[in-house]
């Protein structure tokens, strides 16, 4: 047994050896390895793990707001989502692509074929499907991603494959517009990446953009999903600063409504207008139709119905695409600053200013127009071929007499003339804070000859931009200071603190205050009695100048009207240009009435104190007395005392209702209808057609029918005026006593060019 014992001792010895090897040596090696990895290199690995797990995702910053001059927000930004597809998830799950694509196409109204192509990239984990998706659509999407299909694995077990494995969402920001068409040409829009592309959104992109935030989340390794644990470091996005415009929502609306009507009525190619604060150069309204007009919330849609219809007729696809691209470019173009036009007779204002400033013409110097004038071998016709006869500078401006300004203009000489063209800012960009401003198209100054000055003196052979024109007109009106126009008044931070304010910049004194004053009087005369009389607004002293110019070598015209008001204390200036109106094309005939419509609304809105003439006071409105409950006889007598025409409806004895109501303003000598029975109250009348009638005829006709008319237009001109539009269409059924606005204009002596 000795050997056995030996063998057992040997076994125990070996066992202890092995045990030591394993429990001592082996475990010690393990602990050493752990010390190395976990403690010595721990922080290095921890850092790498964090790099691995943490995903930086950018949170788009809310774009700053754009406010109008009154602090009304024109834009709104809200948080939405973007939707993407994880192409890698389709690897080995190709069968899921078809249902995913078809569902996405259906939810987001996308082309299924294109989408399928997009989603076949199995190397990309991020295939952007749609940006700026609103919550309603996300809910629809979630309904889909909550569903699954089943598929069998190799051993035949069915597994659920959720569609959420393939589709993801991320936060995004969307811009909303309370009035999606208002000032679209000025505001501009942002691209898919949120950067401003056009208009103020582009010009003030760095101000509005803000600083994108970051969310650092712990993401799972394979899918972009968040780990379901609390691990989130949020660096809030910094909202962009806001800008406050000088543009006033109301003025802009008046302006755009009038432009819309003019665009439809005149069938022009385009029409634009700018309203400016003459003293600061602040733009109060700027708009256009036919270009620079689109839906801010969908800038790629062709907003102009006329253009859209034309596009529909194009059958060739390539041609259609090009035409559509051209149409988009055109509708994004703020033509108030990007397109030059020929100023025509409006420019006589500046020739006159220069002549007066230089003392080359006195106020009482006269000139006799015989219908044409010969200069340096060229014959220049006046638009009135019979001639304007003998006139001073005021009447020459009122008549828009070409020979007067040609002959007098030449007194300035080439350099002298150009000095004023330059001083009024026609040779430089105004520097307005909008992108894409163009310059004028003028003669090469070094090569100019006398004949050039001759035509330039009455506004031909060169082009200026509307913003240059309205700035120069403001200069003439405000005492001679050329201002730098601007549309952004202030920048506000998120809390509404003003961080930058635009101070009006006087570029230079162009003419003296005295010359300016003379010009104001002359231009007021143009509107009161001259070619601009259709721009007259009763109660307001408007100064202006008409312009009509031909597109060189065509029979297309620009009809324009530049003006300011009130003439004695100018506050606003305006330029209105109609490009290629159909039918009448004169500035006085076409542009001035539109300008009058805008001016009336704007001046009232700005609370400019009306200054009525005696004749106008005659037609002033009077507040109607309340006579309800009175016996018919008493009521009639009471109202007649105030000069009203009274009509009684029904055969009752007491007045149970009246129209207009007591307290309402009714034109003097207007009609008031008294109702004496219930059934009589429902009586209506058909609106008569008053267009073509003179003021007297229209008033009489209206009173006979039992309606009131408010006269809009230059009422001082009496019989010369004709009604050309009315606020209620003929044939419409209206209650008795309704007040209808009727617009009158003159077609006599409003021409400043060959008709």
């Amino acid at each position: 047994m000795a050997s056995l014992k030996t063998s057992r001792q040997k076994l125990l010895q070996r066992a202890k050896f092995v045990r030591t090897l394993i429990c001592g040596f082996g475990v010690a090696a393990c602990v050493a390895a752990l010390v190395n990895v976990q403690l010595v290199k721990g922080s290095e690995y921890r850092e790498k793990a964090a790099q691995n797990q943490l995903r930086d995702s950018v949170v788009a910053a809310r774009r700053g707001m754009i406010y109008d001059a009154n602090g009304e927000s024109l834009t709104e930004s809200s948080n939405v989502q973007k939707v993407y597809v994880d192409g890698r998830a389709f690897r080995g799950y190709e069968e899921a692509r078809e249902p995913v694509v078809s569902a996405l196409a259906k939810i987001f109204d996308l082309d299924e074929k294109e989408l399928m192509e997009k989603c076949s990239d199995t190397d990309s984990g991020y295939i952007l499907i749609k940006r700026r998706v609103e919550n309603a659509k996300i809910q629809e999407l979630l309904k889909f991603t909550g569903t699954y299909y089943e598929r069998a694995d190799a051993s035949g077990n069915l597994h659920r494959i959720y569609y959420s494995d393939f589709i993801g969402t991320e936060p995004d920001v969307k811009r909303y517009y309370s009035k999606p068409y208002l000032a679209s040409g000025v505001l501009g829009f942002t691209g898919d990446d949120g950067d401003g592309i056009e208009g103020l959104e582009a010009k003030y992109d760095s101000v509005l953009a803000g600083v994108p935030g970051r969310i650092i989340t712990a993401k799972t390794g394979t899918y972009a999903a968040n780990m379901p644990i609390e691990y989130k470091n949020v660096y809030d996005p910094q909202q962009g600063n806001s800008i406050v415009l000088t543009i006033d929502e109301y003025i802009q609306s008046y302006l755009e409504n009038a432009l819309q009507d003019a665009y439809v009525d005149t069938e022009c190619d385009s029409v634009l207008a700018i309203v400016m604060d003459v003293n600061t150069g602040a733009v109060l309204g700027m708009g256009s139709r036919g270009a620079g007009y689109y839906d801010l919330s969908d800038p790629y849609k062709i907003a102009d119905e006329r253009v859209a219809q034309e596009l529909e007729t194009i059958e060739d696809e390539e041609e259609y695409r090009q035409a559509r691209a051209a149409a988009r470019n055109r509708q994004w173009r703020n033509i108030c600053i990007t397109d030059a036009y020929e100023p025509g007779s409006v420019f006589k204002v500046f020739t006159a200013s220069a002549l007066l400033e230089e003392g080359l013409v006195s106020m009482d110097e006269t000139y006799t127009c015989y219908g044409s004038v010969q200069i340096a071998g060229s014959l220049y016709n006046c638009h009135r071929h019979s001639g304007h006869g003998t006139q001073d500078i005021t009447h020459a401006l009122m008549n828009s007499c070409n020979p007067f300004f040609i002959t007098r203009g030449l007194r300035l000489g080439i350099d002298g003339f150009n000095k004023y063209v330059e001083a009024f800012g026609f040779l430089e960009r105004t520097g307005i804070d909008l992108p894409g401003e163009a310059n004028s198209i003028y003669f090469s100054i070094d090569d100019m000859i006398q004949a050039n000055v001759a035509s330039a003196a009455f506004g031909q052979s060169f082009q200026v931009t509307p913003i240059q024109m309205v700035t120069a007109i403001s200069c003439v009106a405000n005492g001679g200071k050329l201002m730098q126009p601007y549309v952004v008044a202030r920048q506000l931070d998120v809390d509404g603190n003003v961080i930058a304010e635009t101070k009006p910049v006087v570029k230079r004194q162009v003419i003296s205050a005295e010359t300016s004053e003379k010009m104001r009087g002359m231009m007021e005369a143009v509107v009161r009695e001259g070619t601009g009389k259709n721009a007259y607004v009763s109660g307001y002293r408007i100064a202006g100048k008409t312009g009509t110019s031909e597109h060189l070598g065509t029979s297309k015209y620009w009809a324009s009207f530049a003006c300011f008001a009130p003439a004695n204390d100018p506050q606003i200036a305006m330029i209105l240009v109609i490009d290629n109106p159909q039918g009448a094309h004169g500035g006085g005939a076409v542009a001035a009435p539109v300008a009058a419509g805008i001016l009336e609304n704007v001046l009232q809105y700005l609370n400019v104190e009306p200054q009525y003439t005696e004749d106008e006071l005659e037609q002033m409105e009077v507040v109607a007395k309340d006579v309800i409950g009175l016996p018919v006889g008493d009521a009639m007598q009471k109202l007649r005392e105030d000069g009203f025409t009274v009509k009684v409806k029904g055969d009752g004895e007491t007045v149970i209702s009246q129209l207009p109501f007591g307290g309402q303003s009714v034109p003097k000598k207007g009609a008031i209808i008294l109702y004496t029975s219930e059934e009589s109250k429902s009586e209506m009348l058909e609106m008569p057609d008053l267009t073509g009638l003179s003021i007297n005829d229209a008033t009489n006709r209206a009173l006979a029918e039992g309606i009131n008319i408010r006269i809009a237009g230059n009422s001082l001109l009496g019989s010369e005026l004709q009604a050309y539009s009315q606020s209620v269409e003929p044939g419409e059924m209206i209650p008795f006593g309704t007040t209808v606005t009727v617009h009158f204009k003159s077609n006599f002596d409003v021409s400043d060019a060959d008709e």
Partner: protein
Amino acid sequence: MNERLKKWIQTGSFDTVFLLIVCVLLTVGIVMMFSASYVSSSYDRKTGYNPYYYFTRQITFAAMGIAAMFIVSRIRLALLKKWAPLILIGCVALLVLVLIAPLKISDKEDFRRWLGIPGVFQFQPSEVAKLGLIIFCARTLSMKARQQNALGQNGDPAIRTCLLITLFFCFLVILERHLSGTILMLGIGAVMLALGGVKKKWITLTIGAAVFGILIFLAFHDKIIEILPIKEYQKTRIVAWLDKDYDPTGDRWQTNQSLYAIGSGGLFGLGLGKSKQKFLYMPEPQNDFVFAIVCEELGFVGAVLILVLFAVLIWRGFDIAMRSKDRFSALTVMGIMSHIGLQVILNVLVVTDTIPNTGIGLPFFSYGGSSLFMLLAEVGIVLSASRASQVRKR
């Protein structure tokens, strides 16, 4: 009761301390495996997005294994010794069968490691064969004791038999493309031979040769890898181990993620269940690399505590072995404890990137039915041995 049957039933009470340590390790192991796996399985289409997939299956295997453990603990080890040749033949049959008709598992079509019925039951014959090798070696080497005098000191057929069988098993397992199985097999064989009384000079020589080989390899690994008769994927694993910047999103991905996990754990860990690396960074966190997640969640302190528990378990297992008067039982138990010890050490060294990634699971922790079942059955053998020594003590 049938007398013949009664003969094979082991009476006496088992070592409760040993069982207690096993229970603690098993419980901690299952909890950590669940913690490691629930994220990836809830994202995995293959598990039907079921976060409890691995957990419930592992619990089931553990229950079956515990049942097997108690049954085995009642079997007298003499029966195993008697059946050892039969077990050997069975193991060889299984190892051959797996080469002929392996069960293909999706994603792992290249490997021929599994047998079973698809979707119902599968196991690795090499897990069984490891125990088979231990039992057979123990038998062969315990026979030696009786024959020692007759044979003298020169030439030991028992040692030679064991060596041959070990190499044969290794050969069969390497054909499965199962490097880790082969290494363990080799390790178990070496330990059995060392315990069984191979001459000291051979032990010294082997260790010396191994150290020298490793040094040579580290010095000339570029050339050696080229001529090594191993599969391409195994070569890349070695290259990936040598070159720490090698293909970080491919071959070194798992190892890197493991290091990041362990490193993230620091001294005290992120807390139970709070691993981040298990969020689909660590591939198959329930398998070989579960210890990395353990380190991340429980920290250095927790990881070392677990290692100490393993050490205590092995120590206690050797105690049991050394108490048993019967040489076969002693060798079998030592073999089993060495097997567990080797596996723990190799696993931790792989997870910490100390040695190349071979794919060795951590006992009681890594997911896997057949290995857990066999492990508990092995524990049953140890318990049986402890019963036997208890009986003798009385």
